């Protein structure tokens, strides 16, 4: 009796549910723990089929488990991992941290009385464990999602790095990146080739000056584009157009060095300039022919006159002197023409001070014969004496090119009265030379192209497309001035004209 009481005490105080079930699933025992949790008393449930009270219980499964337990004389289990609960016990008191509506259970079926086919069922409340698992799996899910996002971001970053590298390598320029201390951090493929590096890694860490021939170059002060001589890893040098830009990348200061190799460009420039020179020489020979015709004919006339006068015994000392003087004058003129021609061909080695008006007059004298031949009148108006310190003969070439261009335009447009006006004046401490004609102007659609090399509207046999390009190069690159062109309308001798106006400004 005492032992039975002890068993009752244990059954009623243990923190588990205890049920006795027979093979027909009828309840033979129901402890206090179950009474308090289910609100069903032992007396209410005794001899009742448990599936009648709890229809959610899978009868076939329970019967199978009971059979296994009794056959094997060994426990069988319901685990909370798979079966939310053996039967439905709703929590009415759990308010905080509540994840499940019902109690989660682990259940063990043990053989109790094999002969009478009775099993003892232990019900364990595993809600807290399952809640913890639930929270863990939720945290895991969150971490996995974050990880997934991180991977996506990583992928995006990798893609943008790839894109960046792609862009870096898609350019024609060499691009070298430096850190704040001007140490190389990246270089594109063009750069690797241009600087003759065996690999990208050879450039990393190099100081910016390692790329320049002039090791004392004050690059920090050079913000805009400038030209410099660069040096490769094999100590070869090449001319380049340089830009150093300061930027911020990932909150760090970086310097971007852009290098455009000018070797080919310079070579092409030289070639164009040589071609232009040849063209100019050809034109000059034409001009000389015009220039020489008159003095040569004067010499020839004087000589044959002398010969005739001598034959008829009419030659006096006076006449002889006069004729010889004329021959000398004409010869000197020829000689001067040759000097001018030579000066022009040789080009200028040094800048010199010269008078603008004199220079222009000399220029006009070179083309005087040609202008007369085509019946073109030139008007030179110099407002004041202007002295320039620049390349004299280069200016001559530029002016002759413009005059030649006007001549061609006047002839092409078949203008009746052909005029070229040259007007010089000082404006804002600069010398201005305006040359305009009455050849009706340049069509608007090509006005922006006329300074481009090999651009010509003339027939192939006439134009090379280099004249105005060279003029532009001379004025802007060599003489430090500027040249522009526009179409103007003007009045001359009470007549209205239209024409192109070239405006050259040169530093004083």
């Amino acid at each position: 009796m005492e032992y039975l009481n002890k068993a009752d005490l244990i059954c009623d105080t243990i923190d588990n549910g205890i049920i006795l079930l027979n093979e027909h699933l009828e309840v033979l025992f129901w402890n206090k723990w179950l009474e308090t949790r289910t609100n069903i008393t032992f007396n209410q449930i005794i001899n009742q089929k448990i599936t009648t009270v709890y229809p959610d219980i899978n009868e076939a499964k329970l019967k199978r488990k009971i059979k296994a337990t009794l056959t094997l004389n060994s426990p069988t289990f319901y685990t909370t991992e798979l079966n939310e609960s053996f039967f439905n016990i709703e929590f009415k008191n759990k308010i905080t941290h509540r994840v499940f509506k019902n109690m989660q259970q682990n259940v063990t079926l043990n053989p109790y009385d094999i002969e009478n086919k009775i099993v003892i069922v232990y019900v364990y409340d595993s809600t807290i464990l399952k809640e913890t698992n639930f929270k863990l799996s939720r945290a895991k899910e969150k971490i996995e999602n974050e990880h997934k996002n991180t991977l996506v971001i990583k992928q995006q970053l990798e893609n943008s790095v790839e894109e960046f590298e792609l862009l870096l390598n898609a350019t024609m320029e060499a691009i070298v990146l430096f850190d704040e201390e001007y140490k190389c951090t990246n270089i594109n493929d063009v750069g690797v080739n241009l600087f003759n590096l065996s690999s990208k890694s050879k450039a990393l860490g190099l100081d910016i000056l390692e790329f320049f021939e002039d090791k004392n170059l004050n690059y920090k002060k050079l913000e805009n584009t400038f030209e410099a001589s660069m040096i490769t890893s094999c100590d070869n040098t090449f001319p380049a157009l340089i830009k150093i830009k300061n930027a911020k990348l990932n909150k760090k200061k970086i310097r971007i060095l852009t290098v455009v190799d000018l070797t080919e460009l310079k070579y092409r420039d030289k070639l164009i300039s040589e071609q232009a020179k040849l063209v100019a020489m050809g034109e000059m020979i034409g001009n000389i022919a015009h220039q020489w015709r008159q003095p040569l004919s004067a010499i020839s006339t004087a000589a044959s006159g002398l010969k005739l006068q001598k034959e008829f015994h009419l030659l006096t000392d006076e006449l002889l002197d006069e004729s010889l003087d004329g021959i000398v004058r004409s010869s000197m003129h020829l000689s001067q023409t040759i000097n001018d021609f030579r000066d022009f061909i040789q080009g200028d080695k040094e800048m010199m001070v010269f008078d603008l008006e004199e220079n222009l007059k000399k220029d006009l004298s070179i083309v005087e014969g040609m202008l007369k031949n085509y019946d073109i009148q030139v008007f030179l108006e110099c407002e004041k004496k202007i002295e320039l310190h620049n390349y004299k003969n280069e200016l001559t070439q530029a002016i002759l090119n413009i005059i030649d261009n006007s001549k061609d335009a006047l002839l092409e447009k078949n203008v009746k009265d052909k005029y070229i006006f040259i007007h010089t004046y000082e404006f804002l401490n600069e010398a201005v030379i305006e040359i305009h004609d009455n050849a009706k102007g340049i069509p608007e659609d090509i006005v922006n192209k006329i300074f481009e090399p090999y651009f010509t509207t003339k027939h192939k046999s006439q134009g090379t497309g280099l004249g105005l390009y060279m003029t532009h190069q001379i004025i802007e690159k060599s003489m430090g001035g500027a040249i522009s062109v526009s179409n103007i309308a003007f009045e001359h001798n009470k007549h209205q004209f239209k024409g192109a106006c070239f405006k050259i400004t040169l530093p004083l």
Partner: protein
Amino acid sequence: MENSAILNEDQQDCLQELINIAYGSGTAAISEILDAFATLSIPRINIIETRYLQDYLQSQVKVGMPQFLATQLINGKFSSENLFIIDQNSAENLARAFGLEETEIQDVNELSDVILEITNILSSSTISKFAQEMSIEVSFSPPHVKLLNSIEEMDSTFIDKYHQVIIISTILQFENQNIRGELLILTTDDTIEFIKKLLDKILDEL
């Protein structure tokens, strides 16, 4: 995989005999409970070093198919771990043998529950009989099941604590049904020593 280093020839023969009896009773129990004729192949006994365990398991499972891995601890002097490995197809067929509806079969939890039951039945029937033969007490912990995409997902953090494992493996097959699962009983150093003594005692009594 040298067995002789641990067990001598007599010990091995004796163990094989005991296991044969135990597994024979397991077959009978399954057939009785499930009303289906199941067979367990003659068990093979292997003793391998623990570091090769994963490779061994890998070689036993079908590649490229998710595997259910059910584990159940056996407590007492014959402390060991029962592993039941079954691929998804066999598990589904097993569930059909258990009389589950097709909709239930698609539910991984239902499928897992069936695997737990069969694991429990297999462990209980085989180990209980084995224990009985050896006159020792055993008890069972609730089994657990996991769906693994590969055996590599199995956590074996403490496996290094043991030197050797005895692997008793058998294949469960149901007549006319495509169900194939592998039952492994893994035991470690202390149990191996215990088994050796027990086997010697049985051999002495013969």
